């Protein structure tokens, strides 16, 4: 495997490691963006109003049991003929990635807002803040630790599933594993696995740092 890594032709070029890492990050980033776009507002709404809690929990449970590989394959066959060229597998893969990432973001946000100290909310209301100001000035900052933990599991889920989506020809590090399997090249598979693992750990670390930088020190000192 060290031999595989030390071969410079494996690193550069359109199917080299660098290109694959960038592809992996782009697909994951796009999926995470859309998942946040859907999950954050719903989580904030449910947390703030307390409406629809059962619905969110049920949805998260139901989605957890859906096999991601089956979903990707299903959507590729259903949507494949609709789109031209590469979009035939990119769009279904991204849809599945978003679908898997929304529940953790949604429930993290909801749980974060719901767990905010009611005294803090009351104090803000007493100071004359309007509901929307309370949400964005008080509840959202206080909910950040749990929002980040939801974001973290969503991101890991996305990176893991984007690897699987290589099976329906999506680019990214999963290519090394799937192509290695097809060519009976175990070292290429193992290299791909190591790289995916490392990528997941690094992204996890980055989110941890981001969360440390953005969460108010007043919260972390108490927790």
């Amino acid at each position: 495997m060290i031999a595989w890594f030390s071969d410079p032709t494996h690193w550069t070029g359109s199917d080299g490691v660098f290109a694959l890492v960038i592809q992996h990050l782009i697909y994951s980033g796009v999926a995470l963006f859309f998942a946040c776009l859907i999950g954050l507002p719903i989580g904030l709404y449910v947390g703030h109003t307390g409406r629809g809690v059962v619905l969110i929990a049920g949805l998260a449970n139901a989605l957890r049991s859906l096999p991601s590989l089956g979903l990707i394959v299903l959507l590729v066959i259903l949507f494949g003929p609709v789109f031209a060229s590469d979009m035939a597998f990119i769009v279904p893969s991204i849809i599945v990635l978003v679908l898997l990432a929304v529940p953790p973001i949604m429930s993290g946000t909801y749980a974060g807002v719901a767990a905010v100290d009611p005294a803090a909310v009351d104090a803000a209301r007493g100071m004359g803040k309007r509901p929307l100001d309370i949400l964005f000035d008080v509840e959202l900052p206080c909910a950040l630790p749990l929002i980040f933990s939801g974001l973290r599991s969503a991101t890991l889920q996305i990176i893991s599933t984007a690897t699987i989506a290589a099976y329906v020809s999506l680019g990214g590090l999963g290519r090394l594993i799937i192509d290695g399997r097809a060519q009976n090249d175990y070292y290429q598979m193992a290299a791909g696995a190591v790289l995916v693992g490392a990528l997941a750990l690094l992204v996890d670390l980055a989110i941890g740092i981001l969360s440390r930088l953005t969460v108010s020190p007043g919260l972390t000192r108490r927790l």
Partner: protein
Amino acid sequence: MRFDWLYRESGRIAELFLWHLGLSVIPVVIGLLLALPLGWLAQRAGFFRSTLLGAAGLLYTIPSLALFVLLPLVLGTRILDPMNVVVALTVYALALLVRTVSDGLESVPPDVIQAANAMGYRRLPRLFVVELPLAVPVIAAGLRVAVVSNVSIVSVAALIGTPQLGLLFTQGLQLRFLTPIIAGIVLCVLLAALLDGLVLFAAKRMTPWQPGGAER
């Protein structure tokens, strides 16, 4: 849906279903058996807690497909050996359940422990007779998550060729044929619901003192 195809293939599908059942359940059982002593250690010793939970979180970060591929290197097994899948899923279950068991033991009220001490319980009997039974609701909640996500992760192993329902997905894509894919998804969801219900039922039977039984 082509029901005639399902009927013709029902024997093979049943076989894949049983494989899927085994691959989902066995790792969770092993994981729970390992997590009980480790979670107990983590809950008791502060140093162990951060190290163990940190290591567990790290293991949980590794994508499943990567773990399936790398384990042969560690275990010396062949890539097609179902053992790789069992070990990988045991690692995930263990990583999840160590935290759960430790949280569950933490959730036992201190008054109860003091009462047990006053009644003359020694440490180990107290653990088995008092603390573990009271930790069941929290442990069961973690167990449900572990079982349900395992059912979904097992199907990924189809990409390296281990027999289970995931093979219906790969077959469906190769043939551009929806029936096996839909059958596979439905069976996976049913299996997850079945196992989830089973854990819920067992937890309810074990916690007759809870007003509504074990809820999430």
